[in-house]
Structures are given as structure tokens and as C-alpha cells.
């Protein structure tokens, strides 16, 4: 994609994230009605749909032929190789409980790569965005990757929604504890987009996702790639992704632990 087109798309992503954020803030203190409940943890509220609609309106405003993969609405449009990936509210459970760790996450996927990433937490007014290598920003600040060794690292991991599959659950738990016990710790924040944004900022030193949803991870993986992280990922099922992200020093160990405990290569 040409740089001027990338920049235009980044501006669209920023505008859309801000608009969705306004909706999230407006409803933050209100009681949310749960519309769908795939599990106790995997829920959607009315505000998820309303914020998605805001994003849809902005993306389609200039070009009605765009394709968008939404968390709630699924695919919108026909182009399955170049499309936007949107999660209007990543961290719905946190949002419902008024925990300020949630974000709108918008990415553009082209030729099997994440080209544009934008993550916005409207409550803290933290806006992370990038459309070029070594050009990842939080608000006005340019972000640079930090390098820490594995034992000094703080990690964030997100689990799959496979709570009924006890085998996978048990592997994930052991992996989580392995990271936790051999480093400064491993957290589960409830928002994968925020995990990856914090990684780019140097708050986390590595992120791990097993069967994560693509719309939660896409923008963050784009930012991590552009900030210069080491990344391995594999799209595993429909819209699911396994990944590990780290720095030059700790990456091999992060990956080794993942492969050892999950029994899967990345």
C-alpha cells in the first residue's frame, strides 16, 4: 500500500476509534444491557454494537466498497484479502465492571499482513497508532521497544475462550504459571489490545495469546511489529490466532515456554 494511502487509512482509523470512544465514555457510568452471551466471559452489550456502528459509518463514509471484519457483526463487504478488522470494545467485562482497562481496536489487513493499527482507551485518552515501521506513537510520543531479559520481564497473557476443553485449559494455566513464576510476573488484564499497546510502550515486556480472537489482536500485533518486536504467530482456526511477542533478548524464551507447555509450534 502506498504511504499516502496508508496515512489516509490511519487517519480514518484514528477518527473511527475516537468516535467509538465517545460512545463508550457516554455509556460508561450507565448500566449496560447484555445482548449476547456466548459464555460468562464472552459477552456483548448494546454499547458494543453502537460503537461498532460509529466505526462502520466512518470507514464507509469515503469508500462504500470497504470490507470490515467486526467482532459483533462479522464480515461486512466482499473483499476477504484486504479488509479492516474492528473490535469496538475490547475488554467488555472490564467495561461492565467499570475497570478502566478497555479499548477500541482497529486494524487494516492487507496481503496477509497487518498494515495499520490503532488502539484507543477513551477513559485514559491513550491513543496508540502506527502505519509504518519504527513509527509507533502514543498520543504525541514516539515509542521505542525496551529490552529486558526474561527473568526481569513482566508479561501479559490472554486465554482462549475454551473453558469447556479441560485439557487446553489446564495447558494454558500451566503456561501462565510458568511465565508468572519465572519472571517479574504474568498478568491477565482482560483486554488483549491494551496488553499489546502496553507492550509497545514498555509497560509489558512480552505478550502471549492462545486462540485469541483476531479482532482483539490485529491492531496490537501491527503496533508491536512496527515498534520492532520479535513476533511469532499462526492463524489457527477461523478468526483465531496463537502468538507470542517479545524483545530481542527475551523472545526465544517466551516462545520456548509457549511451545513446551502448549505442545504447539509457532
Amino acid at each position, binding site marked *: 500500500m502506498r504511504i499516502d494511502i496508508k*496515512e489516509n487509512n*490511519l*487517519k*480514518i482509523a*484514528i*477518527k473511527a476509534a*475516537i468516535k467509538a470512544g465517545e460512545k463508550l465514555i457516554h455509556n460508561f457510568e450507565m448500566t449496560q444491557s447484555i445482548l449476547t452471551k456466548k459464555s460468562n466471559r464472552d459477552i456483548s452489550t448494546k454499547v458494543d454494537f453502537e460503537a461498532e456502528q460509529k466505526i462502520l459509518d466512518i470507514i464507509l463514509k469515503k469508500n462504500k466498497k470497504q470490507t470490515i471484519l467486526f467482532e459483533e457483526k462479522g464480515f461486512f463487504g466482499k473483499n476477504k484479502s484486504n479488509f479492516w478488522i474492528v473490535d469496538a470494545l475490547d475488554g467488555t467485562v472490564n467495561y461492565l465492571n467499570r475497570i478502566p482497562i478497555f479499548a477500541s481496536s482497529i486494524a487494516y489487513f492487507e496481503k496477509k499482513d497487518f498494515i495499520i493499527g490503532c488502539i484507543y482507551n477513551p477513559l485514559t*485518552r491513550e*491513543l496508540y*497508532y502506527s502505519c509504518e515501521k519504527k*513509527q509507533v*506513537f502514543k*498520543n*504525541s*510520543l*514516539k515509542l521505542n521497544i525496551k529490552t529486558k531479559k526474561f527473568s526481569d520481564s513482566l508479561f501479559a497473557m490472554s486465554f482462549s475462550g475454551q473453558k469447556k476443553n479441560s485439557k487446553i485449559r489446564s495447558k494454558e494455566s500451566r503456561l501462565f504459571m510458568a511465565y508468572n513464576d519465572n519472571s517479574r510476573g504474568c498478568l491477565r488484564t482482560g483486554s488483549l489490545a491494551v496488553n499489546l499497546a502496553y507492550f509497545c510502550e514498555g509497560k509489558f515486556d512480552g505478550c502471549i495469546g492462545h486462540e485469541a480472537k483476531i479482532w482483539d489482536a490485529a491492531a496490537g500485533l501491527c503496533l508491536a511489529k512496527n515498534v520492532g518486536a520479535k513476533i511469532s504467530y499462526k492463524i489457527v482456526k477461523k478468526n483465531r490466532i496463537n502468538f507470542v511477542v517479545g524483545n530481542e533478548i527475551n523472545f526465544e524464551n517466551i516462545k520456548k515456554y509457549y511451545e513446551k507447555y502448549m505442545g504447539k509450534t509457532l
Partner: protein
Amino acid sequence: MKSKILIYGAGAIGRGYLPWILNKKAKLSYVENNANIVNFFKKNKTFHSIMIKNKKYISKRVVFEKIFSFGEESKFLNEYDLIILCAGTRSIESISQNLFSYKNKILILENDIKCVDILKEKLNKFNNIFFGVPDVISSNTASGKIKKKYGRKSTITENGICYVEKRLEAFFDKAIFLNKKKLHDQWICKLYLHNTVHCILAYLGHIVGLRYIHEIANLKFSKRLLNSSFSELSKLLIQKYNIDLKTIKYYSKKELSRFTNKLLFDPIDRVAREPFRKLKIDERLIGAANKCIANGIYPKAISFGIFCAFNYKNRKDPDFNISYLKNSLNKEDFLEIALGLRKNEPISQILLENWNLYLSNINKLKKNK
């Protein structure tokens, strides 16, 4: 004294100005981040610096000892009697990592007095770190004519004055040595009467599409803006810093003649670079405006200058993202997300109230250019 001096930053001040004022017998070496400059000067250990004196160019051929790329110098640091830092305020943190083992004196000639405290704290050294204020405009991009005559890496500088803290007299042939209080007054004059006005002009010049400061400074509209800026800042310097009117008048006059100097070729993009740094709340633009407001002075000209900075768009600039944010966010969000200014702050209110007026002023300027 045959001292050895290591200069971080082979740019406008390091290459262009310091060779004119340091002790003639001193052996100079450089540390530079820009690989092109390092490679060029590893092959040619000499360059020309051109000074504007009495409205004429005079040249000086400078021969230096060594040039290191950043990091290469660390083993040799203690061979040097003095280290001078003039590589840009953003590089202070990374340079400090290399200076832990250094035992001699360090002079900071960066455009921010806060660098002194940052470095003292980082190195845990409090007696050997000094500050200086080079009151000079110098440029590492001389005009084509000069480059043709003296080589493409030649630099150009004014015949400025360098104010330096006492105890470094032995290293200089030409500098004024002041105690901390007087040096601080010089810094304040430079910060506001030079830095603030200089970058307002640069951002205005960028919008109008000009290349050099003197081109914008000589326009009728700019002269009005310059006078208003000087007037607001002069009131601030008298009220807040107790600096006398005579000094302020002298300084303002000197700055005006410097900005309009047609021989200087001071590039607008050099002065306007890193707009987010200049727009920090304690820096020369918003910092100056806030201080004016706190002292009962309405910063009309300065706030227009701030607005001009929002419109800086240069793909090569580290703060190029200002254009992403300016074009994506509405004005209130831009102030808060990009600059950390809440909409109920006085400076935000001034900017928001005048936003459309500033915009139409800029459009008029572009049309009449």
C-alpha cells in the same frame, strides 16, 4: 593550554560555531549519530566554517582530530579534558548512558537548562557539569554558493556570544563567563526573546511555504507579529523574572536584526523541527503562553504562533505524527490527546475561541504570499 575536547554533535553549534570560540590550541574531536556525517569526516578530517562578520562572510578551516559514531568513543572518554554536549535535548538520556565512567568536566550547550539537572541526576555528579548559552544562530546547511566554494559540509554561523558558567575559562578564547544567577537571566532572555519568537516565525514561514527565516521575517505581516510577540514576552520578563527593560530592549532589537539578516540562510525546517517538543506545556510556546496568562498578560501573538505549530507538516521530522493527529481529531480532542491540554484550561480556551480566526488568517497569508 593544549587541551583535548570531545564534542557530542557535529552539527550547527558543534561544527559551525564552537571552533570559533574554543581555545585555538585545543584538539577537537566529535561524536555524531548521523552516519553520513561520520563516514564523510572519517575520510576528511577538516571542514570550513563560515562566519558572518560586519555583513561579510569570513571563513575558517577547521582541522579536528577524530570523529566517532555514537558509542565508539566510550573507551577513550577519559583522554578528554572537557566534553561539550550540543547534540539536541532529546539525546541527553542516551548520551548519559555513555558518560558514567567519565571523570572530567562536562559543558552542556543544549537549548534547555533542564538538561543540566537531568544529567547531574543520571550521572550522580554534581560538581563537574556546567551550563552555557550560545547566543548565536548557526546552520549546518550553508547556501549553495558557499557550499560550492568551501565544500558541501561547510557550515555558517553568526558572530555570536557564548555565555558560560565560571570555571571553564581555560578552554575558551572567546566567551563570557557568568555566575549562575546571571547565566540564568541570559537563559531566560534566550528562551523567550529568542527561542519563542524564532520558532513562531519558523512555523509561520512553513505555512507560507518559505525556506529561510529571513524570508518570513522580512514580510510586513511577520514584522507585526514579531513586535507583538516581543511586547508580550517583554512584559513577562519584567513581571516574572525582574529583568530590566534596557536589557530586554537591547535583546529584542538584536533578535529582530538577526531574524531579518539576509546573509544567514537559517533554514525554517531546522528551527521548526520537533514541534511536539516545542509544544510541551513547560516549553517555549505553550509554556510561554501559560506564564503570560499567569502574569495577567494576554498571549495573543504567542497563541497564534502555537496554532501555526499545529500545522507543521514535514515527513522527515520525528514529530511528523502531529499531522496525523491534527487531521484526524477535532480541535478539543487534538488539544487534549496530542498536547495534554484540557479544554477548560485558559490557554485551551484562547486557542479554541480564536481557532477559526487563526485559520482564516493563515489562509489569507497563503493567498497573499
